[in-house]
């Protein structure tokens, strides 16, 4: 594939015009621009998970090698989804196009492309709905806002449903709660029927299905990766940690996104989990089979998401654990909160989580039996079970990025903040319109964190980065904390592009830096191997 260049930040900003003008959107086919889309899925990956119409294809070519009856497949699929989801049906019918959502989308703010206004993204599909599923649309066509499903329209739908990260920020502002995430989910299901997946999503899905995690790490590779971290931890703390894998009879199963095992700065977060659990003497195990907390299946079809998610409960059952802790991840927690129990529950073979350290019973998770690690840690800190030295993080001036999914699909806002305030001394919030329930996406969620669509990612990441720049200028912020593996990977790129000098960390990396462990040697460096504040001269 040809190398795609990303414009410089200044050029990119100049190209943004938030006041759309020009021709009617219905008459303007999408221009599929390099740098703003991901490569098409490969047949071999779709075949692994028995997806239909598998073939190698390239979105930038004219011919998408669609099956002959693609239109029929699409419309039948749409009818099927309308019958299965009230949300979809209602959201197709009731939008009044008031425009409250228009400038709430990070992709619109970063691109000015009017079809990235959430209302219009939905209208792309709604126009097809009106033409084929409503009487007025069938009779009056365009006058009633209906539109033929042509090949150009199909391409446009594909293009814009892969420019939405299902972050739900628009749904917060909609007077009827219309959720573009829901519409994009449906849109992508329809694309899936036609084999129109992207390589960056279908590859991890196939990996996760066969090997247990998106990265395709085989059992020994997972262990190797963690052993590398253990060596580093020993160098830094003098303590040798000995975690267990696939161990039957452990009290707790720990599941985290595989991104934490693979690349910086996620690995530092993972070291944080390891150190915390060791210090507590927690009776827990990792699993190589259920070695993925995230769920890229969620970005293809509901069924695929369920198939991948099933491993967590299945493994908990096989190992005979009592309950589950989940690591820092965004969409993982939307899936675990709003879908897992419905798909693969009831987890009646597990027990309501009770912290063995504090005795706290996590009743709010009494059905799913799975708690978020920031809940676990916040409880430890509140009960004074951790010896913390926040001054070890004194070189950090921290701000916190709420993940879309933990904010708007869960409401986990204060737990991570409580931890941050206890493990570092310099914490500043970004402006209120950009955090908590109004948080902006990193710009690369829902499987858009590829490299060939870097321009799109940087555009989508602009509002978040701009808010970071605000606190960098005002307070000298140099560290962006978060609780999401995709954030850790993608915000690093976005910071380098928009706000150089700001780095990215998981919350548990900071916890582990501040954590005073029993029997540790005097620490000289943080988990990144950089001198601790006051130790620079050593």
């Amino acid at each position, binding site marked *: 594939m040809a190398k795609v260049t990303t414009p410089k930040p200044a050029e990119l900003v100049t190209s943004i015009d938030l006041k759309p003008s020009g021709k009617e*959107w219905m008459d303007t086919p999408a221009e599929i621009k390099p740098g703003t889309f991901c490569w098409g899925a490969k047949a071999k990956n779709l075949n692994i998970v028995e997806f239909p119409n598998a073939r190698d294809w390239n979105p930038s070519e004219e011919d998408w090698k669609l099956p002959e009856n693609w239109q029929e497949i699409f419309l039948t699929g749409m009818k099927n989804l309308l019958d299965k989801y*009230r949300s979809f049906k209602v959201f197709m019918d*009731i939008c009044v196009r008031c425009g409250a959502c228009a400038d709430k989308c990070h992709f619109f703010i970063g691109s000015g492309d009017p079809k990235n206004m959430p209302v219009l993204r939905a209208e792309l599909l709604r126009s097809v709905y009106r033409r084929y599923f409503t009487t007025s649309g069938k009779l009056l066509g365009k006058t009633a806002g209906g539109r033929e499903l042509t090949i150009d329209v199909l391409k446009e739908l594909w293009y814009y449903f892969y420019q939405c990260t299902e972050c739900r920020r628009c749904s917060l502002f909609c007077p*009827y709660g219309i959720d573009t995430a829901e519409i994009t989910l449906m849109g992508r299901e329809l694309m899936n029927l036609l084999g129109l997946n992207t390589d960056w999503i279908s590859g991890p899905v196939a990996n996760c299905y066969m090997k247990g995690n998106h990265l395709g790490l085989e059992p020994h590779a997972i262990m190797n990766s963690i052993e590398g971290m253990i060596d580093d931890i020993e160098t830094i703390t003098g303590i040798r940690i000995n975690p267990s894998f696939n161990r039957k009879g452990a009290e707790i199963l720990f599941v985290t996104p595989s991104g934490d095992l693979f690349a910086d700065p996620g690995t530092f977060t993972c070291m944080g989990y390891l150190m915390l659990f060791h210090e507590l003497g927690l009776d827990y195990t990792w699993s190589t089979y259920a070695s993925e907390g995230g769920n890229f299946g969620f970005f293809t079809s509901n069924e695929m998401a369920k198939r991948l998610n099933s491993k967590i409960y299945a493994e908990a059952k096989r190992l005979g654990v009592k309950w589950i802790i989940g690591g820092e991840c965004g969409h993982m927690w939307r899936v675990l909160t709003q879908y897992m129990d*419905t798909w693969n529950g009831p987890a009646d073979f597990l027990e309501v989580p009770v912290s063995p350290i504090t005795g706290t019973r996590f009743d709010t998770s009494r059905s799913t039996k799975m708690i978020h690690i920031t809940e676990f840690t916040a409880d430890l800190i509140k009960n004074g079970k951790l010896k913390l030295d926040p001054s070890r993080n004194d070189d950090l001036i921290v701000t916190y990025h709420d993940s879309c999914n933990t904010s708007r699909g869960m409401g986990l806002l204060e737990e991570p903040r409580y931890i941050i305030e206890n493990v570092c001394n310099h914490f500043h919030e970004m402006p209120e319109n950009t955090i908590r329930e109004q948080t902006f996406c990193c710009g690369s969620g829902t499987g858009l964190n590829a490299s060939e669509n870097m321009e799109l990612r940087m555009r989508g990441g602009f509002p978040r980065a*701009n808010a970071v720049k605000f606190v960098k200028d005002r307070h000298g912020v140099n560290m962006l904390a978060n609780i999401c593996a995709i954030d850790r990977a993608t915000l690093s790129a976005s910071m380098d592009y928009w706000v150089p000098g700001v780095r990215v960390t998981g919350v548990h990396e900071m916890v582990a830096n501040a954590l005073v462990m029993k029997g540790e040697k005097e620490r000289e460096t943080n988990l990144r191997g950089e001198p601790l504040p006051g130790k620079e001269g050593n």
Partner: protein
Amino acid sequence: MKILLPLFVVVALVVIAFAGAQANLQAFFGIVVPYAAVAVFILGFIVRALKWGSSPVPFRIPTTAGQMKSFAPWIKQNKIDNPSSRLGVFARMALEVLVFRSLFRNTKTELHDGPKLVYGSEKFLWLAGLAFHWSFLIIFVRHFRFFMQDVPFVIKIMESLDSFLQIGAPLLYLTDVVLVGAVTYLFLRRVVMPQIKFISLPADYFPLFLILGIALSGILMRYFTKVHIVGVKGLVMGLLSFSPVIPEGIGSIFYVHLFLVSVLLVYFPMSKLMHMGGVFLSPTRNMANNNREVRHINPWNYPVHVHTYEEYENDFREKMKKAGLPVEKE
């Protein structure tokens, strides 16, 4: 064209009704059309609601707009924006439906030099929406004086409050002014604001023109070209008691008003105006965020093909043994 076509249609509707009344078709416009319209409205509304209701809600997907109910009593839940109980959901929905809480959050994004993104407060849409819907409701309720033999006390109170400024004779109703002002604003923003103009369809302009037509014809009757008010009441009471009569000399403008209302009723169930019913069915708003406490059942949940641990171990057994991992089968 997006604007002119709906405008033309509404003008045509006015002309049709006016000409009809002039041509002695009062019985058609005064009896047949209203009956048909009400029937279409009721049936259409029910059919649409049943259509929505026939699709299940497979997942519990509230948009959480504040701190969840935490395991920890020392973390304060936002019980309205992230409700975990029925009462919380009720409060959230009530605020949504009665005072448009989500719309109240509205901001306006501006890109300044720097580059610097600024999110300013933007309450005009909320204000105009609220003014429009509430004045429409009050005007609708005020009309009950035509539907009942004796005007109920509540309506009399409402009327006197509505006209407390005591301007002119007949007294000016504030809601008349507010409604026309709000509809005009809602129309102008679709013409003036580039984003809104870009997304607007004929189906957005048509109801605005139609409602403006209804309001203006009503105002015309009340304040300017007077109609025979006793006759109007006689006609309405006749319709309601299913013994319709057409009193003499009501005035053509009344038939225009009635016809536009009838068109609105017919148009309602097949249009975006159904947001009135749909808002109550929106799963992102009407569900509690108690997913981890109470399992939600999906009626069409079905078994799926999964890659089992056994298959996984079969794929990797040798590697697992070599790495020292426990296996189920040697």
